[in-house]
């Protein structure tokens, strides 16, 4: 399987899903014109990846300094997808990385954490 690499733009984050290192990272800002259309290839890739992995440890690093409300919905869908895989025995954890000055990013991280029951979700101050 090939890595997924999407460079950042003014309205979309840098996405680097490295399948050999089992490290997925999303970093930057997110307010694309058409959010679901923009993230569709990311979900397609992830679906295939989750089917392929067995018991290896997967780390997902999310470092978003700003995201709009439709990206917030997309993130929830993404975490739900990861949570389902964890329930099916996969070893996945998320690091929600935020700047100490960015209180909103911390608050949004807490909300995601509370909405996820099985997916290990860590708040990491950077």
């Amino acid at each position: 399987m090939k890595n997924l690499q999407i460079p950042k733009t003014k309205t979309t984050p840098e996405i680097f899903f490295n399948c050999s290192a089992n490290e997925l990272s999303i970093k930057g800002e997110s307010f694309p014109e058409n959010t679901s259309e923009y993230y569709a290839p990311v979900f397609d890739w992830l679906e295939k990846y989750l089917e392929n992995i067995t018991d290896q440890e997967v780390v997902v690093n999310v470092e978003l300094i700003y995201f709009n409300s439709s990206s917030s919905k997309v993130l929830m869908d993404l975490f739900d997808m990861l949570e389902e895989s964890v329930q099916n025995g996969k070893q996945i954890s998320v690091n929600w990385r935020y700047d100490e000055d960015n209180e909103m990013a911390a608050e949004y991280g807490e909300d995601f954490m509370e909405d996820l029951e099985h997916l290990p979700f860590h708040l990491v101050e950077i």
Partner: protein
Amino acid sequence: MIGTLYQYTCQFAQEGIFLCYSGPTSHEVLVSTGNTLKQFLEENRVDKKRYYCIFSVYVEMFENIIRYGVDCFGKDLCVEQCRCPYGIITVGLFNDQFTLKCGNIIALEQKNKLKQYLNSIQSMSPQIIRDYYREKRKQNVDPECKGAGLGLLEIIRKSNQPITFSFDYIDDYFLFFSMTAVI
């Protein structure tokens, strides 16, 4: 005409409005004016929390215009076909409070649903808004919504005063919808 623009500018200056966009809206305009807003806030050393709250409200307001506004002042153009709806958005600083206002034209039949919804969420406490946002985010998207249906909740969440809104009569088909948020 030049005199009129000077009058507008003076009026904006009196209200502390430092940014105003009026005209056809598009995602490109949102991105370019939004980046200029960010630059301005950075140069004025607005603290990070407030900075992102202001930018966030700006984006959600602008996206609402693009998604739900109708593009014309005339009844001949079809609502569904609009590409660059007319909108106006301002950002002002007065007495250390940032005020964001947005206005756009909506079709008469959009009013009731919008008004009802705004009335129901307008005075929710911060914790209730936060919980309702999470509840809605977990649900499937309403097919009538062009986004995730969270934009207005996001605006309220980022404001530190209840939002205000109004509907002004244009003609038998259209209304002017406006909303104000304070940060």
